[in-house]
């Protein structure tokens, strides 16, 4: 058995109480949601929080809903709910793509979108998905709420804009017409973290790409936002050549490091291949031409 070091534990019954606990306990306290990132680190004694504030009872943070021209997802929404949601499947199919290849059912039954984003691991699929969709996240603290663009949320490896005493409560995704989105991943084995993954979203207007979003997982110290490739796509008609061109940009603009999953050249190559594939699928969906 792998045993964590000693820690104290509190189970919050409301968001306010969770925030109050976090404020009181200070920097040695950690939120625990699904626990599928935090507990393994604690068991390997790579993380030693002194206090855990458990938010699993906060049912008010588990939802997927439409709110005006946004789709909103509560931070405690589990992977399995993202996978099963018909609303997401219809409006943002990229979620189902991603959830089919994130971990395994056991992890998906517990792990949450909030935990995934807050873990800020560059290999996290949902971070790439939210980057492509240009999501915003809502962070709440004792002083109230603030909304942060996903771009500004991931500030470095394993670092986010969430400060001590704060909680991520919601993810907000703008819904725009002509949208198509897709997620592509290569893994060594089902349930493994990505060797590389690409999330792509495009918004087509009058036969042209009005806007595009691309996020890459596992090919940089943090989630890679392919701003330059998005620029290449904007204003042009979707085509194989164009997606290939974006793929080339992806190979150039990522910064992978070598590890057990593969060497740098391979990961760069994959970033390109997967960007092209994700764009192709996203476009087919936007144009209702998916095979």
């Amino acid at each position, binding site marked *: 058995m*792998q045993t964590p070091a*000693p820690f104290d534990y509190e189970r919050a019954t409301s968001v306010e109480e969770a925030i109050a606990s976090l404020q009181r306990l200070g920097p040695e306290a950690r939120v625990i949601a699904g626990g599928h990132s935090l507990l*393994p680190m604690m068991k390997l004694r790579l993380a030693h929080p002194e206090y855990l504030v458990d938010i699993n009872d906060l049912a008010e943070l588990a939802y997927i809903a439409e709110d005006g021209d946004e789709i909103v997802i509560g931070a405690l929404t589990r992977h399995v709910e993202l996978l099963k949601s018909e609303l997401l499947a219809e409006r943002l199919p990229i979620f189902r793509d991603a959830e089919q290849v994130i971990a395994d059912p056991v992890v998906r039954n517990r792990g949450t979108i909030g935990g995934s984003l807050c873990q800020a691991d560059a290999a996290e699929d949902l971070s790439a998905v939210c980057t492509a969709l240009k999501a915003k996240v809502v962070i709440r603290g004792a002083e109230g709420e603030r909304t942060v663009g996903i771009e500004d949320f991931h500030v470095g490896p394993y670092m986010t804009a969430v400060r001590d005493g704060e909680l991520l409560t919601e993810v907000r995704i703008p819904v725009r017409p002509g949208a198509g989105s897709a997620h592509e991943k290569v893994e060594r*084995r*089902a349930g493994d973290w990505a060797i590389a993954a690409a999330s792509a979203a495009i918004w087509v207007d009058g036969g042209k790409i009005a806007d595009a979003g691309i996020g890459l997982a596992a090919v940089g110290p943090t989630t890679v936002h392919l701003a330059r490739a998005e620029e290449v796509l904007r204003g042009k008609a979707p085509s194989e050549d164009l997606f290939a061109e974006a793929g080339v940009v992806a190979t150039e603009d990522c910064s992978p490091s070598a590890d057990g*999953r*593969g*060497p740098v050249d*391979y990961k760069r190559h994959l970033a390109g*291949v997967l960007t092209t594939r994700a764009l192709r699928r996203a476009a087919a969906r936007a144009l209702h031409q998916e095979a």
Partner: protein
Amino acid sequence: MATTENLPTAEAERPIGFGRLKRKEDARFIRGQGTYLDDIRLPGMVHGAMLRSPYAHARILSIDTSRALAHPNVAAVITAKDLETLGLAWMPTISYDTQAVLAGDKVRFQGQEVAFVIATDEYSANDALQLIEVDYEPLPAVVNARKALDPDAPVIRDDKAGQRDNLASPLWEAGDKESTDRAFAEADTVVTRDIIYPRCHPAPLETCGIIADFNPATGQLDIYNGNQAPHAHRTVYAHVAGLAEHMIRIRCQDIGGGFGNKVPVYPGYVCAIAGSIVAGVPVKWVENRTENLTSTGFARDYVMRSEMCAKDGRITGLRVNVIADHGAFDSTAQPTKFPAGFFHIVCGSYDLQASHVQVKAVYTNKAPGGVAYRCSFRITEAVYLVERMVDALALEMKVDPIELRLRSFIAPAQFPYETTTGWTYDSGNYAATMQVAMDLAGYNELRREQAEKRARGELMGIGVSFFTEGVGAGPRKHMDILGLSMNDGADLRVHPSGKAVVSISAQTQGQGHETTFAQIVAEELGIPPEDVEVRHGDTDRSPYGLGTYGSRSTPVSGAAVAVVSRKVRDKARQIAATMLETRPEDLAWEKGRWYVKGDPEKGALIEEIAARAYSGEELPEGFEGGLDAQVIYDPPNLTYPYGAYIAVVDVDPDTGHVKVRRFIAVDDCGVRINPMIVDGQIHGGLAEGIGIALMELLSFDEEGNCLNSSFMDYLIPTALECPDFELGETVTPCPHHPLGAKGVGESPNVGSPPAIVNAVIDALHETHGVEHIDMPCTPARVWAAMQGRPEPPQ
């Protein structure tokens, strides 16, 4: 009974004995009612945890345990110094080497055992580990086996008198050099390949652990420990700890997989025993996943160079040179007389003119092991090598790989067949089995599909392997482990009610012994399998024997059970003769009943005979009463199962990702006692083979840090990587086994990796010029090979 319900099959007319039967043991497993080591809690039990070396090679300057001892829940901290006073600092390995129980002078691999903490609970024990201060002086590490013998390589085993280099055993040879040179000189085609069978790990889902319970009042040592060879373990403890063997009892509870990993005695076991002797209370120690992957018996790690030649269209000769990486201590599992295990079965299924094999073993700063991961002592490496070489030769000769095999097979009339390395294969009809596999696969159709796909830029590969294994160690004249013959006992008692208990020394870890062995007794005595209880895993309640690994349970223990059943049947005949007032030779047997020849109405059922055997009524003259018997079985030879495997893979041309789309496995393991269990064994082994071929690897950086110390980095396959396996069979009974059975447990693990790798190369050769790729065929490694720069695994 639902659990032993017969399924409707061709064998339906044979309700007793052999046939498809649900496993008796599954009733408790599927209800979560198995009893594994972790389910056992003894009164007063304390917990151990192991401090391990962070360095691969370092001198230990000092160990300070005072802060750990000050922990309120810590009872004791044991170091090498303490063990020295008990004479337990070093222990023998199963290869006659020695291994430090706790490191005193130096640590020799990352993860090596340094100190053992005993505390009231496992959390405290693990907390206390962090309070022990060890001062290390790091030394350069030897990681690459090929560099272990460099003159400037640091000497790892300076504890051994006279050891001046990293040679772990003298050069070992088999076959004949001269005739092999001649075969190569006369050949018209020769191929050479460097082939690595990388280090992998059996990774049983239940890790290793023990509860040692020494009773100071009686001197009795009770051990609970899921190992694959309880009787051999008891003997080893008697030697190591100087304890009286008759005062040691080992009980193996249910075991969550072994695969060879639970054959050896590990330092944690010895520490728990020493701890219990010192503390006088039961000590439990269960390793975690990281400890299992980084310190217990790994498998393979063979660096091989091989040449194979052909003349007039068939394979004629083979030359092999191996460097075997044994890690820091040589604890390879193998019979004493075969320093490289059964690697020299490398001639495969082919009628070679000559072969010559050399194996050199080296020490490195890596975990010790070289256990047989679901294989009989290095047969897996041999089969992989020869089946890769045949494919390489076929490529060179531009002939279909199946065609070359068919031309080169040992012919049925040649059996018993003596190979050029000295093995006597018992039986076989290889071409027939190959044909069944081709038919099942639709081989010619697959080749057509491949050509069409290739034209469209898709990469599809078809890979073949044909293996022969030698399993069921083994004959006393050839095989022993640490001086213990590889024979098995069996003890059968039929109670007055006609229900029976058979005790065996083989130790199931999931193989279904409780069902298969009951079926053997059932078949031989004609009573239902549910009336036979199979007792195993308790050294006080079972006869001596060497345990379960090397596919030896059915070949050796199964034979013992058949023979002991027949002994009981003969006894029953004597008793029946008295009952029926006739002579034994006038009786004939039908399932479950002796009857008078010529008067079949007149007979006695086995349960009537059993009742009589224990009754106050007349028994045969000089007969002691009771209906039981005991045997020890010494197999005359190994059994030689074989099989034809065909893998179909698709390779993503852009990402290098390999998908095993189909897998056809036709096994000939002789007579199948429970075909359903055989199928289950094959399914499991094929899954493992897919894992080994595609993802499993223990790798190290230059400092000797293990890079695969959890299931995040050491990948084992899931159902999603496994196609719906297509199984077939041929039955060539083993001529010397009482039931005609051969071992099968390991065949799929042994036979499948070469089929998959051959398929990957088949997919890539024509378009990308790939001639060889080492396992594991991960997307990155396959892609590198497609770019023309395949890399050996590190």
